[in-house]
C-alpha cells in the first residue's frame, strides 16, 4: 500500500504580498512555502505510514527549485519524491494541470489499496479544483474537505465537512481525498529526517517521461490545453487612508453599515 500526496509550492501570502506595477504578482520578493492544506495531506499520509508502515510518495508540478520543497517533505518522513517539471507544462490552468499531475500519478502507478491525497486548495489561487479534477482523470472516487480519515483494510471512512455540519462517507481504495486544516497538525521535519532527506530518491518527470500517457498531448497541456484564459488581471484600488465618519448618531451608523454592505463585507 502507498499514499501518493500531491503538493504545491506557493508564495507565502501570510506576509506582505508584493504586486508589480503591471498587476502581476512579484513572486521573487516573496518566500515560498508548501501549501498549508497540502501539509495536512502529507501529515495524514505520514500518520497512515505510522499505523500501517505504508509508503508515502510526494509529487509536485513546478520549476526545478520545487525539489527543495520535496526534500523538506522527505525530511518529515515521506519516502520518495516526484517532480513534474518541463517547459511544455508552463501556462497550464487548473484543467491542464490536473491532466499533467494525473499523468504523473499514473506513472507512479495507483494500485488497488492506494490512496491519493491533496490539500483542499492552494493559497495562491484558492480554486480547490485540481484535486477533484485529478480524481476525474484517474477515474477515482473522491472525498473532499476531509476532517477525519479512518482506514480499515480497503475501506476508508471520511468525515467530510459541510458549512453547517458534516457527512460521514464510506469509500474504498483506490480513492482521492482532499484534506483541510482541521484534519491534523502537520509535524515538523526531524533532525534525523533532514540528514536522510538528500539520500532519498527524487525523480524528475519531464514531458519525455509522460508523453506516452494518453492524458498527455499538445491539446491537453500548457496554454493550448487550458480551457480558460486570463482576460485581464488587476489590483483593487489601494486602501485609502482611514475615513472619519461625521457625527455619531443613527444616521452615521446606517451610513457605515451601507458602506460595509456595499463592499460585501457584511
Amino acid at each position, binding site marked *: 500500500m502507498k499514499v501518493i500526496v500531491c503538493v504545491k509550492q506557493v508564495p507565502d*501570502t501570510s506576509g506582505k*504580498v508584493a*504586486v508589480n506595477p503591471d*498587476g*502581476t*504578482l512579484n513572486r521573487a520578493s516573496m518566500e515560498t512555502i508548501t501549501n498549508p492544506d497540502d501539509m495536512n495531506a502529507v501529515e495524514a499520509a505520514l500518520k497512515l505510514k505510522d499505523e500501517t508502515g505504508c509508503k508515502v510518495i510526494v509529487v509536485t508540478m513546478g520549476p526545478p527549485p520545487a525539489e527543495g520543497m520535496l526534500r523538506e517533505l522527505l525530511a518529515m518522513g515521506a519516502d520518495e519524491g516526484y517532480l513534474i517539471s518541463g517547459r511544455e507544462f508552463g501556462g497550464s490552468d*487548473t*484543467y491542464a494541470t*490536473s491532466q499533467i499531475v494525473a499523468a504523473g500519478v499514473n506513472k507512479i502507478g495507483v494500485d488497488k489499496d492506494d490512496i491519493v491525497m491533496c490539500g483542499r486548495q492552494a493559497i*495562491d*489561487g*484558492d*480554486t*480547490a479544483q485540481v*484535486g*477533484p*479534477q485529478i480524481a*476525474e482523470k484517474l477515474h477515482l*472516487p*473522491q472525498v*473532499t474537505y476531509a476532517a477525519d480519515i479512518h482506514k480499515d483494510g480497503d475501506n476508508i471512512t471520511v468525515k467530510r*465537512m*459541510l458549512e*453547517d*455540519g458534516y*457527512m*460521514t*462517507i*464510506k*469509500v474504498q481504495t483506490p*480513492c482521492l481525498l482532499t484534506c483541510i486544516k482541521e484534519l491534523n497538525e502537520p509535524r515538523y521535519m526531524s533532525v534525523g529526517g533532514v540528514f536522510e532527506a538528500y539520500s532519498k530518491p527524487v525523480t524528475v518527470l519531464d514531458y519525455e517521461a509522460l508523453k506516452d500517457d494518453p492524458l498527455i498531448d499538445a491539446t491537453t497541456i500548457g496554454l*493550448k490545453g487550458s*480551457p*480558460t*484564459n*486570463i*482576460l*485581464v*488581471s*488587476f*489590483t*483593487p*484600488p489601494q*486602501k485609502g487612508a*482611514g*475615513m*472619519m*465618519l461625521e457625527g*455619531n*448618531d*443613527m444616521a*452615521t*451608523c*446606517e451610513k*457605515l*453599515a*451601507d458602506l460595509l*454592505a456595499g463592499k460585501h*463585507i*457584511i
Partner: protein
Amino acid sequence: MAFNNTDLAAFKDVWVFCEQRDGKLMPTDFELISEGRRLADELGVDLCGLLLGDNVEGIAKELGGYGADKVYVCEHPLLKVYTTDAYAKVICDVIEELKPEAFLIGATNIGRDLGPRCAARLHTGLCADCTHLDVDMGIYKDFLHEASTLDNERIDGLNTAMVLGQKHDVSRDLKMTRPAFGGHLMASIICPRFRPTMATVRPGVMKKRPFDQAKADACQIVKPAFELSEADMQTEVTEVVKAAKKLVDLIGADFIVSVGRGISKDVEGGIKLAEELAAELGGVVGGSRAVIDSGWLSADHQVGQTGKTVHPKVYVALGISGAIQHKAGMQDSECIIAVNKNDSAPIFEIADYGICGDLFKVTPMLTEAIRAAKAAK
C-alpha cells in the same frame, strides 16, 4: 450525436445548479438565480435552474420567483443526499444532452466538490469562487473603472483577447472575475473555446432579487430523462450531521469586536454591547491588554503584542486607544472600524472607518444598522 463542446453555436441558455440540503433550497440558489437572470438577459437567452434531489419538484417553482424561466428537475432516491458520483453523472449527462451556454454553481463546500469534477468530465473551463460576473461589455467596463487600478485606455481596449495566437472577440463570453492571493490580485477569466462556461460563485456576494409570485407561477418545470443506478455509486454517505457552529477562537475568526479601557465606566454593559455586535456579525469578542489585565475578560481574548495576532475580515475596536502593542496584533485586519471618544486616538490612524463618539451610545446603533442592512440584502 457525440457531444462536441467546441461547437459554441450549439449551446444556449444560462443554467444555475440549485443546491438543496434536506429538501430545502440554499440561499445561494436565489442569489445565483437573480444574477443568472441578468446574464441571461444580456445574452438574450433563457435562465434555467437545475435541481437534483428526491421528491423535490415542489420546491422548484420558488426559483421562478427570482427569475428562472424554467427549472430542470431530476429526481431519484440516489439523489436525495449529495454524492459526487451521482450528481456529477446526472449533471454531465443532462448538460451533454441539453447544452447550456453557461453553468453557474454556488461555491459552497458541495459546489466546489461538484464543479471541478463536472468541468473535468465535460472538458471545459471552470472559474472558481467568482465575485463578479459579466457578459455586457459596457457593464463590465464600468465595473473595472470602479474596482480596478487599470487605466482607462487599458479598460477601453479590452474587447478582444489573444487566444492561441488569434484575436478573439470577448463580447459574448462570460467574464468571470475572482480574487487571488487573498484578494491582493483580481483576475477576469474567460472560457473562449469550450462550452458550457462554468463558474462557482462565492456565497453572499450576488444580490437576491425581490420575489415575484407571478413569475414563480409561470415558471416551467421540465423533467429531463437520465439514468442512474447503484452501479454508478462509488461512495456511500452513512450519515449527515447538522452541527451548531462551533466556537471559533480569535485567530480563525472573520469578525472580531474588541473592547478597551473605554468600557471602564460600565464593564459588564460594555462587554454585553460588544457581544451583541459580535453576534450580529457572526464573530467573537476580543480585548486590549488593559481589559485582560483588569480581569474583565480572560487571557484568551487578548489581542496584541503579548496576546494574539489576528487578521479578520472586520476588526471593530471599541474604546481602544490603539497603543503600538495593540496595533501590532491587529493592523493586518482587512477592515478596521474604530469607535473612540478621543478624536486623536492613534487607533484612527489605521482605521478604515472611524466614528468619534461614546461606545455605549454608538455600539447599539451600529448593531441595529448592521442588522437592518443585512436584512435589506
